[in-house]
């Protein structure tokens, strides 16, 4: 009996032979063991080391000393926002502040919710330190720093820093709100995102009461669970907040200006690349989920429809779909369709990627053993509940790497927009070299800059997916 008893702490410390051996090795031992363990490995290591050092040296010298970054510096606005009217750029600034607030609100609410859970269950919550965040987002922060270094005035830097400050302030504010405010916070963040896009695209063709109705709905939902001592106070408060929402939207519309000075089609440069691929990623996921479920459905009509959709859009090159969206839609709907080119591009992008993503998701669904479903049935669960609570969580967790791979490739596919004369980030980079002074110079510099921007964002996406995988314990359970 005494043998199976766990040894006490002191016993362990008194008997070093029972401690795990120290596996740390000094750098010199590691090198001797891995790089110079025989003569040909030593030779290869030396050659590779010299070549690597030379490459780093030449590239570093190019970036820091010999590179002529004037082409990027002078055209930074073109690269970032393309043809968006220069005297309307305050709209983009305003949007960034609104988005930062919405993100801060979301982040704060998410953190607060997990703290709530920790409080309820008594399980200690690991909170990320600033170092953790730096490690997670260093690529994007580095990208921001590079862009800001290339700016010509101090304003973009001040603006970026203040945007971050606004986001952080809103976050800490949101964390201090009472629990009953969690859901209204989500509503408010979504509403702010919608409004921010109305700011950048102008309000033309968009009746103010449409947004006002949305705001009123959110106000109504948010105040549904109000607790007051006097019954009529609650009603008065609800009516008051709905009225306030409507008034605020009307004033906001008056501020945004009901003019036609900007439209969706003015979105371009890196802004368009990010918005279009972001929208496609967000929209294609639920669509892909429905398609994947539909393809496995036992109803023949649903199955055939989903199979047809997937096979058609997976079988047609993206560029063909883009041309159809740009040119042939006009033949069917007439020249003055209200569908802007940007809308069409995003729709085509979503359709295309959802067909691919659906197959990825289906792969995940097939990986879930049938016994899991049967177990759910044995427990008396309804089919939708089995799907939602048992199958999907396992299926989606299994395909995170494949899905993120799809998202990254989608993000880079946005370079194909150039073929339908949409000025995305890469097209803006090409246009620099149509200008008289850069026709034949600085081509490598702009390429390196473009590659860096694409890399920084793709790398962060991949990093976040790895974190999500760790968080959900993929490969461990």
């Amino acid at each position, binding site marked *: 009996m005494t043998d199976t008893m766990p040894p006490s702490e002191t016993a362990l410390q008194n008997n070093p032979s029972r401690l795990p051996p120290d596996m740390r090795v000094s750098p010199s031992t590691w090198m001797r063991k891995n790089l110079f363990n025989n003569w040909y490995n030593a030779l290869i290591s030396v050659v590779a080391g010299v070549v690597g050092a030379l490459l780093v040296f030449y590239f570093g010298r190019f970036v820091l000393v010999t590179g002529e970054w004037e082409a990027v510096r002078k055209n930074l606005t073109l690269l970032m926002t393309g043809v968006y009217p220069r005297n309307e750029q305050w709209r983009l600034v305003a949007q960034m502040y609104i988005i930062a607030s919405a993100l801060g609100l979301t982040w704060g609410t998410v953190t607060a919710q997990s703290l709530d859970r920790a409080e309820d269950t008594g399980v200690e919550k690991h909170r990320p330190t600033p170092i953790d965040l730096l490690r997670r987002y260093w690529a994007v922060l580095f990208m921001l720093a590079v862009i800001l270094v290339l700016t010509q005035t101090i304003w973009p830097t001040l603006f970026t820093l203040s945007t971050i400050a606004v986001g952080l302030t809103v976050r800490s504010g949101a964390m201090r709100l009472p629990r009953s405010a969690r859901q209204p916070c989500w509503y408010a963040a979504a509403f702010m995102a919608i409004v921010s896009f109305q700011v950048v695209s102008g309000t033309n063709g968009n009746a103010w009461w449409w947004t006002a109705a949305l705001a009123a709905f959110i106000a109504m939902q948010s105040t549904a669970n109000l607790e007051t001592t006097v019954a009529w106070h609650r009603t008065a408060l609800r009516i008051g907040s709905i009225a306030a929402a409507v008034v605020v939207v009307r004033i906001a519309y008056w501020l945004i200006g009901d003019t036609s000075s900007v439209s969706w089609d003015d979105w371009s440069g890196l802004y368009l690349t990010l918005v279009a691929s972001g929208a496609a990623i967000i929209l294609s996921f639920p669509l892909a989920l429905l398609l994947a479920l539909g393809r496995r459905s036992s109803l023949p*009509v649903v199955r055939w429809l989903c199979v047809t959709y997937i096979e058609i859009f997976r079988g047609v090159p993206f560029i063909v779909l883009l041309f159809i969206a740009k040119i042939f839609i006009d033949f069917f709907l007439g020249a003055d369709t209200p569908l802007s080119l940007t809308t069409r591009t995003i729709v085509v992008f979503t359709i295309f990627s959802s067909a691919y993503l659906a197959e990825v998701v289906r792969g995940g669904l097939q990986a879930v053993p049938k016994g899991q479903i049967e177990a759910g049935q044995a427990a008396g669960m309804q*089919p939708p509940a089995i799907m939602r609570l048992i199958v999907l969580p396992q299926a989606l967790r299994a395909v995170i790497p494949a899905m993120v791979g799809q998202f990254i490739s989608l993000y880079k596919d946005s370079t194909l927009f150039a073929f339908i004369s949409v000025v995305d980030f890469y097209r803006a980079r*090409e*246009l620099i070299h149509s200008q008289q002074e850069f026709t034949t110079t600085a081509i490598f510099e702009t390429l390196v800059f473009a590659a860096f921007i694409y890399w920084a964002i793709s790398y962060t996406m991949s990093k976040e997916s790895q974190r999500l995988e760790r968080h959900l314990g993929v490969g461990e359970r």
Partner: protein
Amino acid sequence: MQKSISRLLALLGLLMAFSLIAASCGNDDDSSADAPSNTATPSATADSGADAEATPIVLAQNGGTLQTVLDRGNVRCGSRDDVPGFALLNDAGEYEGFDIDMCRAVAAAIFGDADEVEIVPVTSAERFTALASGQFEVMNRNTTWTATRDGDEGANFLFTTYYDGQGIMVPASTGFTTLNDLEDANICVSTGTTTELNLTAVFQARQIPFNPVTFEGFDTLVPAYEEGQCEAMTADSSVLGVFKYEIEQDGGDDQHIMTELISKEPLGTVVRDGDTEWAQVVNWATMATVQAWEFGLDSSNIGSYSGTDPNILNFIGAGQDGDGFNPGLGLPDDFAVHVVEQVGNYEEIFNRYPQLGVLEGSVNDLWSNGGLMYVPPYR
């Protein structure tokens, strides 16, 4: 299981019913929205579906383009964004160039405001389809007037704004001076243009073997040429002039443009086939720039003209007795004043872009100076 399937079927049925209702609502919306704005109703276009298959161009062309443009409040002009001098998106995010100014002239004539123009960049390959589908009403995209384009492409070529010709450029160090020197040479050319066709036609006719190296645009072609991927590059001579200047400015090799031109390239304004009213509007708006030049009017003096030349008085819309003059083109009386004040006369526009070369004594000079710029009298 049985129960859930029947429930799902019921749900599907409900969805289909909804979509039927939605579809019928959609149709109602279409007809009510379009009926007041246009002479041709959607039902008319739908009825002519059989004809439309034979000539799809007609489908997008309802006539009444001028009214459509007036209703919308701006004119959309197809152009490009990558040729300095003709049409370029500059580092301020604005379009500039000779072709862009011609687009602005149309807007100035119709609305009295040259800024009421939306530039729609298109690639060479898609331009005629985009024009036919109605993405823009006017196209100034250094497009050569050819019989096939006038016929099969459903394009209607108007006034020629720039007489060009295709040339060949080689590094001066090669010593090449004639086409025969280019035997077995790699020649850089942009794809989907008449440039490519001309090159093949001329070299085949003279039985000179060569390798065309094609590019989608000049932004990739020129660097490739500079790196020596080709022994020669070909383009319209105006474009070659731009790149010769730039390459030499940047410290590249000296360049030589062969004196022999291998084609005629009349570049001009293009509209869709089938709407003569609109064609007249665009044509006279464009020609006003040349007419003003011929009269000696420019952006500084046309607004304050106080002479008595009856032709000029008609041109500026004052009329000979001060009672106005309007030839019934569908434009305001004083459209020419707006065009010239806001965009300039032909000479001013041309000289704004040094990349286009020297106007004086060239083929693009006024007819009275021995050039080809000749417009019908405005009376």
